[in-house]
């Protein structure tokens, strides 16, 4: 199978969807200059022209409003937030407008908006450029939230997001951008709301959101012979594939959720709530969450690394889960 990087897969998905549907366009800071600071829109300007690839001034509230207003009137914007914490600048437009308009209108409006938010930690950019805010958008009714952790999921989920009629927060992890992986040729769509069993196992379920998938798989390899870990990449947080998570819990009786966002009120807490609510009788151990530290992420690599889940901390959590 051919290989692409995560960012190439994203660009390919946008190429295909823009060619397929005239109403799809890209808007955001620098998206039309050298293909963006993360090279996430390379080639789109040349192919589709400045009408459909709109670089904006640094006016997050205004261009987020443009995305929403254009969706209210029939377009399908792909809104790029260069660094996810920048969306705080446009909070009213995200949380009061984009999230609420469809319901406030009694369902008369559709909001087919894809937000490509570049998130993640570990790139040593400190607190205002390093953050995953999935929990905030999960907590705001009106958004779907996905966090692809592989190249093929990046492509397939982005295409599904662009075709969805609701705002979809598509959270990219910059750490994954430039390493090639296999991606199927041709039309490739990953439906929203389907988890991926990245590694089957029978002793303990580890559910990851985004980048920690890799660390959890590394931990699972190290735990071979001790604990047989089933690694599930949630991929989509809302809608959440509780069937796949639940089936795993019914098999293993143990669940750990791992994410980089602060553990307090994080998506892990919500997944554990759902497990306790729906699969309590199958649990053989108290469900656990390993998240980021409850601090704005510091710069110094030694400090930042200490704030994030790592392979060894995941191993420790799995051992606690298995009473080892």
């Amino acid at each position, binding site marked *: 199978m051919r290989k692409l990087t995560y960012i190439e897969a994203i660009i390919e998905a946008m190429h295909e969807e823009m060619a397929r549907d005239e109403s799809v366009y890209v808007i955001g800071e620098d998206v039309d200059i050298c293909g963006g600071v993360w090279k996430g829109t390379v080639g789109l300007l040349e192919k589709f022209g400045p009408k459909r690839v709109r670089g904006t001034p640094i006016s997050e*509230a*205004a*261009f987020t409003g443009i995305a929403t207003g254009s969706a209210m009137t029939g377009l399908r914007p792909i809104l790029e937030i260069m660094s996810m914490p920048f969306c705080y600048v446009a909070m009213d437009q995200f949380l009061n407008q984009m999230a609420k308009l469809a319901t*406030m209108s009694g369902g008369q409006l559709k909001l087919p908006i894809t937000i490509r938010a570049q998130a993640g930690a570990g790139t040593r950019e400190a607190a205002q450029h390093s953050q995953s805010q999935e929990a905030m958008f999960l907590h705001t009714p009106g958004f779907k939230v996905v966090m692809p952790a592989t190249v093929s999921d990046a492509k397939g989920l982005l295409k599904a997001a662009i075709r969805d009629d609701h705002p979809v927060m598509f959270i990219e992890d910059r750490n994954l951008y430039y390493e090639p992986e296999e991606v199927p040729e041709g039309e490739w769509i990953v439906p929203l709301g389907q988890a991926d069993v990245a590694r089957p196992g029978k002793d303990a379920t580890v559910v990851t959101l985004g980048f920690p998938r890799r660390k959890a798989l590394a931990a699972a390899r190290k735990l071979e012979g001790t604990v047989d870990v089933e690694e599930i990449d949630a991929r989509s947080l809302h809608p959440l594939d509780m069937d796949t998570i639940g089936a795993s819990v019914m098999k293993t009786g143990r669940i750990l959720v791992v994410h980089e966002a602060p553990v307090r009120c994080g998506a892990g807490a919500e997944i554990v709530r759902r497990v306790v609510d729906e699969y309590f009788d199958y649990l053989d151990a108290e469900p656990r969450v390993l998240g980021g530290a409850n601090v704005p992420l510091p710069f110094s690599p030694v400090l930042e690394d200490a704030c994030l889940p790592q392979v060894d901390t995941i191993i420790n959590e799995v051992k606690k889960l298995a009473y080892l």
Partner: protein
Amino acid sequence: MTRAFAASAVGEKSETPQSSTDMTQLRWMLRTMLTIRLFEQRVKQLYRAGAIVGAIHLYIGQEAITTGISAALRDDDCVFSTHRGHGHLIAKGGNLQRMMAELMGKATGCSRGCGGSMHMFDPAIGFMGGNGIVGGGVPLALGAAFSAQYRGTDLVAVAYFGDGGMYQGVLHESLNLAAKWTLPYIAVCENNRYAATTPVAKAAASRDFSAYAAPHGIPGVRVDGNDCLAVYEAARQAVDRARAGQGPTLLDCETYRVEPHCGIIPDDRPKGEREVWGKAEADPIERFRRQLQFNEEQVRQIQAEVERELDEAVEFARQSPLPDVRVFFEERAI
């Protein structure tokens, strides 16, 4: 269809149009302003009687602005309203029965009971919703203008906001982008002199809001917002510019909010000021009647027609079913 007719240049005293087509349009203006006034008075009664709940912001005293703006628009042009938006919807052609049903939280309401007073929607006639956040609709309208340009249509988009919206940063982001991208965008400031209870004199460093346009290189027009024909003429010029691909305009329409900010907030504005603005010569409808020489009997006749429509609207709302909770969750949960 554009409700076009001759009127005076901005800033000059409006003249009386002559042709019969003009008279049709002038009657539409008078009737629209009276409909807004009587609708709001009815809402006030129903609110006091407990038949309408929630936050109600009345448009009384500001009728000339939205009437003049809408007279220059087509049905397929988009407007983005505010928390004080009943008048905007009526002038855009809103259905009084569905509006009244929305205010009573009924399934037949224009937002199916999900929006209430501040979030009425009627996208089929280009009414893209009220907004409970001051300045919230300002960039949304920019998106509709973007959409119009993107599709190669000659539609225009209007953002209404009050003097309170002038203090929001997103307005300046939006004016910059509208100008830079030459978008068919009309920013309409309804300067009613109070942002909730804070007067312009206390909040604004510069009292000339139309001057906010100049740094962006776009027209900024200060208009007597209680002179319907003056608003219409300014709007017509802005709409012509926008349709011709010449970009945005900022209109600063000065008016006065006759009622308190909303139903539950006491009115502690200076009594003298309220008396001056309450007089017939300041009232936009009475000014229009005198200016265009409609006689009082004509007004009474229109009022009687509108009151009948309002009776029907209230009856429709009262008889309408409440929203079905189960259907709400089925349809609206995502």
